[in-house]
């Protein structure tokens, strides 16, 4: 029996042969299909998460900017808004002082009776004060102030004539009665006179203060929480405007009140009431902080608008390598020869790019970075062209002289055609524009910072030029802007999402300027080839970024 007949017989016997698999196989397939469908949604959910984070960051960032102070860089109305319970204490103290001279005890009594509702009233009072304080800033130099401004002026309470010391703690103590009554008018006067009196208040510990202050500290405050105005510095000609000084005094006063409030003057229940107040106010002011949500374990989450963040602009260039991995797309085994041909002829080479990046960085090290990046990568194609022909033409010219001396010129042309193999080389170039969006964490050093970043890149544009073997006939076809001019598209028109991670070493030249070097890895989530293409091509990039940074 011949080989062909043997094979044919076996083939015929098995042609219609069927064996039923166990039902378990279909159940497994169903499960796998369901999970693959879910994984597609997982990417969508991831993308949605990034968009939401980016949107929330932009929203809260812009909101934080709107509350940034203008008049006083170091202490401002926005700072006042950040300390609602502190301001509430001022209001409480002032109210109790005006109604009853025994303010320390009565503040405690008032607070002991306070409730969340009262705290809310404090918040209202604080907002009023804040608004009025803003007005004060605007009307600096004018002679009239609103009634609420008097409260801020009280914070600037000092006795220029007698040179006595001032303590914010005395605001609610017995001696504060005199201060608050006697000096409010003086403060009004002083504030309206602006530059006429160049008094500069300063603050020191209570150990150096008068007996009155010490007495107050014994009753109400820790030793290091009082503030005083020293006569020595009153006559400083270079002092800032009086309103600003008053504002600074007020800030100091608020700081002292906070410390007193926090576990000193209030019972836990009252403290909780104030916490509730703070939360309420934060919500009311929309000062919801994303850091609290993302990193609840971090106690020092900076708050938007409190100047504990900064912006950075990075300009960088990058060089690196493109890595490409070609595989059979599992569609057809005949593709293997084409796969081998592509693998043997294509060598990914360099990758260069440049970009701009805007970052928001908080003092706890967390940063969000976004920008625009333009890059170009190349794949070198080197192949043996077996169709080369070399033609050599030999021309011989002979001059024949006969016996008579006549000359005859004889031309002879010999063409030699040689076929051979020539190594040919060209480059395929790929240009990309991407939007990087990363979250980072910075380990701060004295001059060096180490940053770890991770995130995604969204491809906006993908252009390619060059030539590629077509699987249909193994001939070269030009790559246009939208892919091969003929045949199946070897590259997608956009590259989708890629994952990036980097570690940067940042060296600060000055508080504003720094330079950094940042190795980066980038992996394209989806193949760069379309799913219908015979081969699947995956890209991976490694690069080194070098750049400069301006922080503000």
């Amino acid at each position, binding site marked *: 029996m011949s080989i062909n007949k043997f094979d044919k017989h076996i083939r015929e016997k098995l042609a219609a042969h069927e064996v039923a698999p166990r039902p378990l196989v279909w159940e497994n397939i169903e499960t796998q299909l369901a999970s693959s469908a879910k994984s597609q949604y997982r990417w969508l959910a991831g993308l949605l998460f990034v968009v939401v984070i980016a949107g929330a960051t932009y929203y809260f960032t812009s909101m934080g900017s709107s509350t940034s102070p203008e008049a006083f860089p170091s202490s401002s109305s926005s700072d006042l808004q950040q300390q609602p319970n502190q301001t509430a204490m001022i209001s409480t103290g002032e109210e109790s002082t005006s109604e009853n001279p025994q303010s320390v005890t009565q503040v405690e009594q008032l607070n002991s009776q306070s409730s969340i509702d009262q705290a809310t009233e404090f918040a209202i009072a604080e907002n009023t004060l804040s608004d009025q304080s803003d007005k004060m800033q605007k009307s600096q130099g004018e002679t009239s102030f609103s009634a609420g401004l008097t409260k801020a002026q009280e914070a600037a309470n000092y006795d220029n004539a007698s040179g006595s010391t001032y303590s914010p703690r005395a605001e609610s103590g017995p001696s504060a009665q005199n201060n608050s009554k006697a000096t409010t008018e003086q403060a009004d006067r002083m504030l309206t006179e602006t530059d006429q009196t160049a008094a500069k208040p300063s603050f020191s510990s209570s150990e150096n203060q008068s007996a009155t202050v010490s007495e107050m500290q014994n009753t109400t405050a820790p030793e290091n929480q009082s503030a005083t105005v020293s006569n020595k510095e009153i006559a400083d000609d270079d002092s800032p405007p009086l309103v600003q000084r008053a504002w600074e005094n007020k800030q100091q006063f608020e700081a002292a009140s906070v410390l007193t409030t926090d576990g000193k003057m209030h019972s836990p229940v009252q403290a909780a009431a104030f916490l509730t107040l703070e939360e309420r106010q934060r919500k009311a002011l929309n000062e919801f902080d994303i850091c609290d949500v993302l990193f609840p374990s971090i106690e020092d989450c900076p708050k938007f608008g409190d100047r504990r963040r900064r912006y950075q602009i990075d300009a960088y260039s990058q060089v690196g390598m493109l890595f490409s991995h070609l595989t*059979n797309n*599992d569609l057809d085994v005949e593709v*293997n020869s084409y796969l081998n041909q592509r693998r043997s002829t294509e060598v990914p080479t360099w990758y260069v790019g440049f970009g701009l990046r805007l970052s928001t960085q908080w003092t706890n090290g967390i940063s969000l970075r976004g920008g625009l990046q333009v890059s170009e990568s190349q794949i070198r194609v080197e192949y043996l062209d077996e169709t080369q022909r070399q033609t050599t033409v030999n021309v011989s010219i002979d001059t024949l002289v006969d016996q008579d001396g006549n000359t005859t010129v004889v031309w002879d042309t010999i063409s030699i055609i040689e076929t051979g193999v020539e190594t040919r080389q060209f480059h395929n170039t790929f240009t990309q524009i991407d939007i990087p969006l990363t979250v980072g964490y910075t380990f701060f050093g004295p001059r060096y910072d180490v940053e770890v970043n991770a995130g995604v890149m969204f491809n906006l544009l993908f252009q390619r030029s060059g030539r590629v073997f077509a699987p249909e006939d193994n001939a070269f076809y030009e790559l246009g802007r939208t892919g091969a001019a003929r045949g199946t598209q070897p590259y997608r028109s956009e590259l989708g999402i890629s994952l990036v991670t980097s570690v940067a070493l940042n060296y600060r030249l000055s508080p504003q300027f720094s330079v950094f070097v940042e190795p980066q890895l980038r992996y394209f989530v989806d193949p760069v080839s379309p799913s*219908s293409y015979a081969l699947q091509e995956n890209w991976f990039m490694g690069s080194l970024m070098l750049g400069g940074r301006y922080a503000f």
Partner: protein
Amino acid sequence: MLSEEDIIAGCKKKRAEAQQALYDRYSGKMFALCLRYAKHRAEAEDVLQEGFIKVFDKIKTFRGDGSFEGWIRRIMVHTAIKYYHKASRKNEAIGWESLPDSPMKPEVYGQLDADQILDMIQDLPEGYRLVFNLHALEGYKHKEIADMLEIGESTSRSQLTKARSMLQKMIEKMFTIVL
């Protein structure tokens, strides 16, 4: 009952009923194919499962140029080859001595049924089995088989010859016992 076009269209839209109809229609034939390539039934089931997942995943690329069954069959074959590579059994020693050619009478084959042939194919050493399946039953050329299995073309030829000899020997032995 869904037509083949309806099944393809439904599977492209990832409809569960179309996917099940496709599986019901072709799973028997494809499992028989997988059994020929696999070492045992459990391995064949794995190949079948992986192959159908690929079919459902890649069905949007099927343009209808050729036979749909042929397209599924190629995917199954390729999956089986991939499975073979993944299991790293390609270096398994084949070491089968050359068997003398023992011509058999044609009527002997007529008495064999498909299950018996399948059993004998499964008993072949892995390298022989793959080459015999690919060349004798699927029609691939030795160059293609060499690319697929990452072996030399001459190795493919020699393994095919040895596979045939071994099968003939098995058949002969079986009928000797029966007789």
